[in-house]
């Protein structure tokens, strides 16, 4: 196995428009570079051999923001995970999932340079932010010189590290509809050590309670059978409308098991991943309930 960084060139655009023009011409060769925390590591281990990068850092002037408008939350793709945390999101009871995600995301010093667009753009199953955004039914804006299009995050993934992104497109924005007051979110992961870990699995959830009844629920995992993050729709359907209780959640385990396929690898066997998915899902839901109750 041969390892080391290869040499490459970089194009530094003036602004978003310039970047999109460049990508239109060179998108087949140029790899967009945001924080670099994923793609520079891939380059180092020869998983990719980049010859050319498109430097996205100058786009921070335009694309780093967290706003609320028209009933939506809008997040610029070049917002860092740190900036995301420092916004109103992690103080809003409904969006405490962002608080959970922040404190579990990689390491403190990667959160200052890792970006929202970058995390989604990796297409990797263990993308904590993407998993959380799935529970918020988020949409992703892809921009090119011909214009913008919105894609639901759950439809963005096509395969292992493969997104529905044309080579002349950039992820520029993420949005999700603001949720109701009686709801909250949570994200949990577990690994061999108590931090600085990818997680055997990662799970996130959004739940709205009407008294004791689960009026709405969305649950996402790093994988439900595909090599990218996904939702457990049948489990959600089973739980939707039912009374929140330990019994009901445990009953949902068999539904989860029916719609989840896990791999066995040197890190853990499938059986463990499935059982851990159940346990962390339960813990997420209890965490959300306690947040809703105040």
């Amino acid at each position, binding site marked *: 196995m041969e390892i080391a*960084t*290869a*040499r*490459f*060139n*970089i194009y*530094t655009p003036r602004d978003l428009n310039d970047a999109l023009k460049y990508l239109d011409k060179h998108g087949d060769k140029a790899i967009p*570079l945001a*924080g*670099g*925390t994923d793609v*520079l*590591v891939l380059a*180092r281990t020869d998983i990719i051999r980049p*010859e050319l*990068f498109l*430097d996205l*850092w100058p786009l921070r002037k335009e694309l780093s923001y967290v706003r609320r408008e028209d009933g939506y939350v809008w997040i610029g793709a070049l917002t860092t995970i*740190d900036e995301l945390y420092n916004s109103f999101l992690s103080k809003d009871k409904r969006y405490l999932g962002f608080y959970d995600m922040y*404190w579990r995301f*990689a*390491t*403190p*010093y*990667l959160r*200052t*340079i890792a970006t929202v667009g970058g995390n989604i753009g990796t297409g990797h199953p263990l993308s904590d932010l993407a998993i959380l955004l799935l529970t918020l039914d988020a949409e992703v804006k892809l921009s090119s010189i011909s214009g913008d299009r919105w894609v639901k995050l759950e439809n963005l993934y096509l395969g292992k590290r493969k997104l529905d992104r044309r080579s002349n497109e950039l992820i520029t924005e993420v949005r999700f509809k603001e949720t109701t007051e009686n709801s909250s979110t949570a994200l949990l992961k577990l690994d061999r050590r108590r*931090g*600085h870990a990818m997680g055997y699995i990662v799970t996130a959830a959004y739940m709205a309670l009407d008294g004791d009844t689960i009026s709405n629920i969305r649950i996402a995992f790093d994988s439900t059978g595909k090599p990218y993050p996904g939702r457990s729709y049948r489990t959600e359907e089973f739980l939707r409308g039912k009374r929140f209780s330990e019994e009901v959640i445990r009953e949902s385990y068999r539904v989860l098991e029916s719609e989840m396929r896990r791999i066995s690898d040197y890190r853990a066997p499938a059986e463990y991943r499935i059982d851990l998915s159940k346990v962390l899902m339960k813990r997420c839901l209890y965490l959300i309930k306690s947040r809703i109750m105040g």
Partner: protein
Amino acid sequence: MSQKEYPDIPIKLTVNGKEHVVVVKPYERLIDVLRYKLGYTSVKEGCGRGECGACLVIMDGKLVPSCLVLAIRANGSNITTLEGIAPEGKLHAIQKALIDAHAVQCGYCFPGFIIAIKYLLDKNPEPSEEDIKNMLEGNICRCGSYPMFLEAVKLAIKYVREGKIYFDIKEVKG
């Protein structure tokens, strides 16, 4: 192999208050510029992948892993390395505390830890033990000085609270 052209790009950066102009290639990393071109060898490489915390510097007020920052991104930036957290001949409270807590073993992880601790205390002068552990979660110390680091940070907080930010090295040398 085709002869590829990699341009020479001049960048200007301020390190510990001193201005430098260096010529870099597009693929060069900030860590190599700091260590070999500018001589700030306190910045250490432990993994090259942003997983160990040994290469941490403060860049424009942000804690960053210099092994994953491309040199061209540091153009126009203000960088603090361990060499710059105290004036010559003096020790910062954090450094004094580490000595007092007997935390020094091989010392390779120290620059990364000290920069992270400085970053923490600059933002929050009275962190809880949980805050400290959260901040240092990504700094690996294989010699196992973790309990001593905790004790040292608590001592440093105390020194700073008492107004003792810098100590004379001569005082410390037994």
